[in-house]
């Protein structure tokens, strides 16, 4: 069994972010970049499959982004992936996940062997979109199951059962392999790589490739053009309601009805 894990580097969710004055992007000064938390679930799931089964031949990690994303790829290798593919793109295309998915598909289909499982995060906490996984499945001609919280692969490694979270319940989905899965919180708890594994990861092979040199990508361009970033519209200052709890309850209900008109 061969497993592909897709990881992306994103700003730490704790970072307070600001936009460059000309709106051309994020002010990266002082911002810590980390592996997208949902992608860590994907990496962890891949490594756990290898620990539990004897038929996992290879785990390949792929990342797409600016050159600095190599650091995130190394973290995934330290978690247990065997080798890495780093696809380098210009930052301006990072907002079009269809384009990113096309480039990843172009990179991984160079290898005729193919993958039995492709694991992605449910969404990146940079674009907050979640387009990449389903789009990659389409480009690879695979079925996909989105936002899974439980995964069981059968003994012979040709079928899988997954539970996915939907509004108001869980969907139980059965599928043949190969398949692409996007990982939701609750699937697994990502491990912290140990120091020896971090050291080992530095020696694992990584292929670095410019997206434009991939098959079919020379002429490809994002269909969605990035125009700019802006801070979210400021909310009006909070109106503090004072008084005894009884007075607060009365006044709050009054403003919600008469001013805000929401109840």
């Amino acid at each position, binding site marked *: 069994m061969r497993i592909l894990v897709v990881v992306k580097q994103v700003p730490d*969710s704790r970072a307070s972010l600001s936009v460059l004055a000309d709106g051309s992007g994020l002010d990266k000064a002082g911002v810590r970049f980390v592996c997208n938390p949902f992608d860590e679930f994907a990496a962890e799931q891949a490594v756990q499959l290898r620990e539990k089964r004897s038929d996992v031949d290879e785990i390949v990690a792929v990342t797409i982004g600016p050159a600095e994303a190599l650091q995130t790829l190394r973290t995934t290798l330290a978690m247990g992936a065997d080798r890495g593919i780093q696809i380098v793109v210009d930052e301006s295309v990072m907002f079009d996940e269809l384009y990113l998915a096309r480039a990843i598909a172009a990179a991984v289909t160079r290898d005729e062997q193919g993958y039995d499982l492709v694991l992605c995060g449910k969404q990146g906490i940079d674009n*907050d*979109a979640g387009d*990449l996984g389903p789009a990659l499945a389409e480009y690879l001609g695979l*079925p996909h199951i989105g936002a899974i919280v439980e995964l069981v692969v059968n003994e012979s490694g040709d079928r899988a059962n997954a539970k996915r979270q939907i509004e108001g319940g869980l969907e139980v989905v059965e599928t043949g392999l190969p398949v692409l899965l996007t990982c939701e919180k609750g699937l697994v708890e990502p491990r912290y790589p140990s120091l020896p594994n971090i050291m080992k990861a530095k020696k694992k092979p990584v292929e670095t490739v410019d997206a434009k040199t991939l098959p079919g990508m020379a002429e490809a361009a994002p269909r969605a053009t990035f*125009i700019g970033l802006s801070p979210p519209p400021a909310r009006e200052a909070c109106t503090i309601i004072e008084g005894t709890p009884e007075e607060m*309850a009365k006044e709050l209900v009054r403003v919600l009805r008469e001013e805000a008109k929401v109840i």
Partner: protein
Amino acid sequence: MSNSILVFVEQREGTILPASLQLFTLAQQLATEQGGQVCALVVGARIGELASDCAALGPKRLLVADAPPFRYYSPRAYTQAICDAAATVGAQTVLLATTALGRDVGPRVAAKLGGALATDCTSVSSHNGSLRIQRPSYCGKCIAELELPADGLRVLSVRPNTFAAPEPDAAPAAEVEPLAVDIDAIGSRATTLEVVKSDSMHKDVSEVDIIVSGGRSVGSEEDFSILYDLAEVLDGAVGASRAAVDAGQQPRDRQIGLTGKVVSPRLYIACGIDGAIQHLAGMRGSRVIVAINTKADAPIFSAATYGCVVDLFELVPLLAAECKRLLAADS
């Protein structure tokens, strides 16, 4: 000419989602600005009368893909249905609601048809035939603006409650056209076996207009009952912070935030929630936010419309009683 606007109408157990109805307002706006007719697609199994609810919203064509394999969502089958419908009506723009399904199927449709995609749009406007859209990104800390081209297919999912639904028109214009989808041709290996409903007694946060949400300080599952009482009076649902979920006070499907659900209800009442940036990522888009917290400098107040610096255990029951009185007086 291919310039129709196709609205994908999502239904769940025989009810059309409000978020899907709201799409008709945007569809009409785009038809006015860019030309083209508004068309609609409903997909499901045995959805009979539902289609007529859509007809009252004024689509010029109303396609219905009604077949047993559509009983549960399947990415490939639904992708095929939407692509077939887009071809049938000559769609240039496909509109979906940003729901679990909309997020899942939109990228496949756009990828399959070689189109442009924008997920979770909160603003859409026309610019010489192209579309300028805004969408929250970086956990809601920034708004990204993108342009989708004037030529080729464009797939947009729109955040619920971004637009108000249009008033139903008494004289529906469209006849229902059955859409035959060649599902066998897809040969998908993935099938949904069943849907296990969670806690069907209470509504899900993604299905309501009002959310009463609790943090770690609520303390226990039993203590959450005062929040459920308030939610029930308001016909809303209960949400929770990750800290409350991690402490086992609420099931995970109630978690709001970065690693939970993103919601944009009309009213969000945060009870004993500190307002961590990862929580704000999930609810900042709510129209009105009420913060109830004992700590006057809790970050939640900076996101709130109204704030009460008070013990939630004192205020929430009083609030429920007061709302009950008000709503009883209405009827």
